[in-house]
């Protein structure tokens, strides 16, 4: 073994090699963003100053960021379950939309005492989102339709259905428009006194997060989901009820997405607009991927995204940046981090191979054994390994 190889192996065991590609990824993203800002004749420092000033400096601004954050985190909680089970729930956008439609169906046409009204609206939001996701799961297990294709189709169907409702049955009186009429006050989620935040959505999101955390870190069902995520067929042979688990994971994810959709219409908008999901589902998919499906890190990554998302408005009104640029910045950041994370994984594999070679005195050794799954250990790979 050469001295260089030894040094390389030593470095590889440190965090440096783990972080370096990430830093390079972020740097590449920042350079790309700087180039765009330069092209727009905007001072990068002005952008950073503004992001801080309009998102974190004042309590009401922080409240706005949290309001952006909650539905994203709620969707992420659901996606953690499906990703862990090896399911790409691309259909989450449709589940958000159907949740919003479900809540709207009560808000517009049912009048109950306040508490019952809110409960019924949220129940319908969760039920509609859950049913939409469950259908994708059933198509997967009984119809042989991959959940990615099923999800895309269900997204399209939900979007078209929502558009139809706005054009015809739910359009404002004697008119058509991009949204329904505003919901009556009785139908809107209550807000905190000092800040525009919904305590109900906060409780729901917190409950969802704790549920997912406990499920994936210490429950038998969480263990089964991870086993399915590693290899669905093997898990099935070992007695894991894979079909039931797919349905259950999709159902719970759909309920959470539906509740997020309910929040959007019952609190943030107070009506059902066209394009109600607005890409929150896809954003949540990216968040969970960036967090490597680790429950504990999802709140932080999703908060960072919500922060950038909510910074879009002041960047537009004060620096006249185009509406699409914020999405482009987020996309560049995610793209670069994922690319360089891939590089990091490749480097790690190569170094481990060299380690094994060194240990066996240069002879070819068999590939490392598959990862054993133990309760208490979080999932560590992406879905689709089955």
């Amino acid at each position: 073994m050469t001295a260089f190889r030894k040094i390389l192996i030593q470095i590889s065991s440190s965090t440096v090699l783990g972080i370096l590609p990430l830093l390079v990824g972020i740097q590449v993203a920042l350079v790309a963003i700087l180039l765009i800002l330069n092209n727009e004749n905007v001072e990068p420092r002005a952008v950073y100053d503004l992001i801080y000033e309009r998102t974190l400096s004042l309590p009401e601004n922080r409240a706005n960021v949290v309001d952006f954050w909650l539905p994203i985190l709620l969707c992420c909680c659901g996606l953690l379950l499906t990703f862990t089970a090896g399911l790409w729930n691309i259909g989450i956008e449709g589940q958000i939309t159907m949740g919003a439609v479900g809540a709207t169906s009560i808000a517009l046409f049912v009048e109950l005492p306040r508490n019952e009204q809110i409960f019924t609206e949220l129940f319908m939001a969760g039920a509609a989102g859950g049913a939409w996701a469950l259908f994708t799961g059933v198509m997967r297990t009984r119809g042989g339709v991959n959940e990615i294709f099923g999800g895309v189709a269900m997204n399209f169907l939900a979007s078209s259905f929502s558009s139809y409702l706005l054009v015809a049955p739910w359009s404002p009186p004697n008119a058509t428009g991009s949204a329904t009429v505003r919901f009556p006050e009785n139908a809107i989620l209550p807000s905190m006194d000092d800040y525009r935040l919904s305590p109900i959505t906060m409780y729901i999101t917190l409950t969802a997060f704790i549920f997912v955390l406990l499920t994936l870190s210490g429950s038998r069902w969480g263990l089964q989901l991870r086993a399915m995520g590693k290899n669905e067929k093997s898990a099935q042979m070992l007695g894991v009820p894979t079909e039931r688990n797919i349905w259950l994971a999709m159902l719970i994810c759909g309920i959470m997405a539906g509740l997020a959709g309910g929040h959007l219409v019952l609190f943030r908008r107070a009506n059902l607009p066209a394009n109600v999901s607005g890409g929150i589902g896809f954003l949540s998919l990216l968040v969970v991927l960036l967090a490597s499906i680790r429950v504990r890190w999802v709140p932080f990554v999703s908060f960072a995204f919500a922060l950038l998302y909510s910074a879009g408005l002041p960047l537009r009104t004060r620096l006249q940046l185009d509406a699409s640029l914020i999405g482009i910045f987020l996309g560049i950041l995610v793209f670069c981090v994922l690319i360089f994370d891939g590089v990091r994984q490749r480097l790690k594999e190569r170094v481990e191979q060299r380690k094994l070679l060194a240990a066996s005195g240069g002879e070819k050794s068999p590939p490392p054994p598959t990862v054993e799954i133990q309760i208490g250990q979080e999932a560590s790979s992406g879905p689709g390994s089955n």
Partner: protein
Amino acid sequence: MRKRYSLALIVVLLIALVMGAGFANQSKATAQDEFVFGMILVGPHDDNGWSEAHYNGGLYVEEHVEGAKMIWIDKVNPADSPELTMDLVVEDLVSQGAKLIIATSDDFKADFTAVAPNYPDIVFIHVSGDGVWTGEASENMGNLFGQMQYGKAIAGCAAALKTETGKIAYLGPLINNETRLFANAVYLGAKYCYEHYRGMDPATLQFTVNWIGFWFNIPGVTLDPTEVANAFFNDGNDVVLSGIDTTEATVVAGQRSAEGERVFSVGYDYIDTCAEAPSVCLGVPYYNWGPAYVTTVNAVKDGTWTQSFDWLEPDWSDINNPDTSIVGFAKGTALTEEEAAILDEYTAALGAGAKGEEGGVVLFQGPLNYQDGSTYLEDGEVATPEKVWYMPQLLEGMIGESSAESE
């Protein structure tokens, strides 16, 4: 190792996102003599249409009112900015010192009306809304609009003068009182000129309306205006008039003309719309918001503003005067000199009618029926402003939907 890596990932991401935060400046106080007004645009500020006309109106204010400064946000619609709500937008504009906020789409009506009472010291102007009339508007909110039905009638006249197939079409946005009014005005203008200047039987004029579903194209949500315009021409219409905020009708007409077809278009909203395809453009009824905005800004600045519903007529002495007329008609180069002269004559007649002068043309005068045959105006009856604003149907003789399918 993996946990350490993930922790590092989060920390680095967060640091990257808020780096430079320590250098954050406090918000700059507005200058003593500065008057900040906010403008909320539904489409792009450079759309060659509705939103650009408003944006230019704001620039006109900056030019004509000392210390006036516009802050604006465009693309406030569910497709471009699904994350935005009116609360957030207004809060942001007020935090920058706006004392007057102008919302420039009927699509903002419900949300703008709901937000206004939360800021009693700020004046809210809703362009194209009717909240003051209906009593929904709080005291700090007013309405402003131009009587575009006259511009639309002139547009309809231009189409009627040019058509050879006797088939003209209207590319409509969504369906509401405003859009029905304008479609009806186009039809009446076309019908009048087809009969009086062309000497044709107005019953043989085919006038078709198709609504795309919003003020501009939203893929997957609205009909594609390019496809609708092409379908119109495929069906034998030789003039398509635009009622939407963007320029697809003119662009498509230009493309088809380049392929040798005899087709024309009439634009909407923005004075320079014809620049998209001058050879096919018969003209454009446009808004000139600047003077009206100057009046409003001065009133708010002086503290003399009071709530009102301002539905302003064109300056009939010269509808294209940039300093006095809120509605104008820019004639296109596709009109012959003779046709242009007829348009001037018709415009003068409309002005005389609006002023109640002898021999003038009154646009909305009976007998007129709705599409379902019910009476809109009795013989000789002249519509009140309310009857003009609130028309629940298209008029008899027009082809197209009057309202949403459910009704």
